[in-house]
């Protein structure tokens, strides 16, 4: 029985960490209507920077902030490529992720171990380590999601929403579309970078290949979340966690491992179809 509790705990922890990416994908794709492919690069950037800063003994919580800032910067550059240099949204994202790969190699190399004794998951010395990870993640995610929800109700939040629906409206009220696009992508990438930073502190090492496939995790989580509600909130967390359940299921089924990816694909299709038929009934 303990085994199942531990499996579920792992699923929850990973689901919570990747829910930040899901939120980032949501902000770009749903809110400002920009298909952001620079998410993968930003995830790696957050991870690399965290690994490097931890190596130099920076406070683990401070590294999270630095990661977010670096992520925001990468998003702003992506937005600049798209809006000012007129690159197609998909191209600007791909270009950014490609370029960041070299920067990541320069920041942290291809692989970097960190000291697991000093991470945000060891902040409270009096709580045993195995509960602490989950506890800190739950606290952090609740805080983060409440903050973003609040932010979306502010004037800037409304304007971002308007940007996705009808960019002309922004021009009518005298706001600059390019600035708001950069802000939206910046937030999206900032969140992806935070997720990358959390993942490095959680697993104990940075690897340049960790960001490969992150976009799928983010997109799948968001699509699953859409089945609950179109707005920002708990749905994104649940979607991300549920995607981890699917992944874990494919391990637990213990079929030939080569089938894993196909099973994941089929399960996602099934879910979306199921969601459609439930809505009709």
């Amino acid at each position, binding site marked *: 029985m303990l085994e*199942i509790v531990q499996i579920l705990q*792992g699923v929850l922890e990973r689901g919570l960490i990747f829910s930040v990416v899901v939120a980032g994908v949501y902000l770009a794709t749903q809110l400002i209507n920009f298909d952001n492919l620079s998410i993968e690069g930003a995830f790696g950037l957050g991870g690399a920077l965290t690994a490097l800063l931890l190596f130099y003994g920076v406070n683990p919580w401070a590294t999270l902030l630095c990661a977010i800032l670096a992520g925001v910067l990468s998003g702003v550059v992506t937005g600049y490529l798209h809006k000012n240099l007129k690159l197609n949204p998909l191209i600007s994202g791909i270009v950014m992720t490609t370029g960041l790969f070299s920067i990541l190699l320069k920041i942290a190399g291809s692989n970097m171990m960190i000291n697991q004794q000093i991470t945000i998951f060891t902040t409270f010395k009096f709580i045993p380590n195995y509960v602490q990870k989950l506890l800190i993640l739950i606290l952090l995610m609740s805080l983060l999601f409440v903050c973003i929800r609040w932010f979306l109700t502010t004037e800037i939040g409304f304007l971002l929403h308007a940007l996705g629906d009808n960019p002309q409206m922004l021009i009518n009220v005298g706001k600059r579309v390019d600035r708001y696009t950069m802000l939206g992508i910046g937030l999206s990438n900032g969140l992806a970078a935070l997720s990358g930073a959390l993942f490095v502190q959680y*697993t104990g090492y940075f690897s340049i*290949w*960790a960001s*490969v*496939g992150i976009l799928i995790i983010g997109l799948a989580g968001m699509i699953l979340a859409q089945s609950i509600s179109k707005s920002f909130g708990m749905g994104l967390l649940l979607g991300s*966690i549920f995607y981890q359940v699917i992944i874990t299921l494919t391990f*637990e*089924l213990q079929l030939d491992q080569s089938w894993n990816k196909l099973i994941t694909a089929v399960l996602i299709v099934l879910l979306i179809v199921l969601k459609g038929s439930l809505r009709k009934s």
Partner: protein
Amino acid sequence: MSYKSLLIIILAGVSMMIAITLLRNKTTKKNQYTIGILQTAAHPALDATVKGFIESLHEQLGDTVEYEIQNAQGSITQAHALAQKLHIQKKYDLFFAVATPAAQALKTQEHERPIIIAAVTDPKTVGLIEHNGNVCGVSDMIDVPGQIEFMLSLVPDAKTVGLLYTAGEPNSQVLVDLMQQELKAKNLTPVLCALQSETDAQAAMELACRKCDVILAPTDNTVASTIALLATIADQYQKPLIVSWLSDDIKEHKGVLAARGVNYFEGGKQAGTMAYQLLTQQTTAANLGITTIDSQNTYIKP
């Protein structure tokens, strides 16, 4: 759809997971030993390592060992999730991690039971080795000075040497740094031809063929995967290609001039012997430590 219906779906998924976990535990036969294997990706060299490991254990212990092979399919997130899954199950006596990401994922979670690693070139720089740790295994480090000597014996008048490797592979980086030092010491000019992914292999190889007298490839997963293509290009340009690993398929490519270096199947067998010692004798992982693959075989195209 509301929260309620999603909750039902989530509950269904979770209960399915629980049912499968319980069912699986019931159906497992009681074997004497159980070993959890975590492989980083499906790849000829890594597959050969696992095959060698299992074969060696089979020779020494017969059918008393049960294996559970998990493959992370090249994904770090998946490697971590699988390592967690292996770590929380108490039935495993020891773990076998193949290639660096798998080894790191297991090491960061499992601190008690022994982890045998293989196909890792430099376990120290990637943080796998600590004092009195639970990691032991077989490194696939090649003998770099010997490699350069071997190259010069085949192509004595070479001046520029192309080093073909993947940027971002920690193992290759270590080897390429060593090779560069060694080449410079011998007054040869190393030319770095790095590829980022398999799709760049052709471009990198063509550059190497145009610029260099001879092309040398360290043990590198991506280079190994694209060896068929690389050998064809080498053949087109009539340039000697020398690789640092030995496998059966090397001999089939007519563009490969020679191979000298590690045999992953043998490495797997050596790791299997370590597993045998850990299971049956009173020894610890710290005692066994890290060894290199004994045999440095050579193959030269007839």
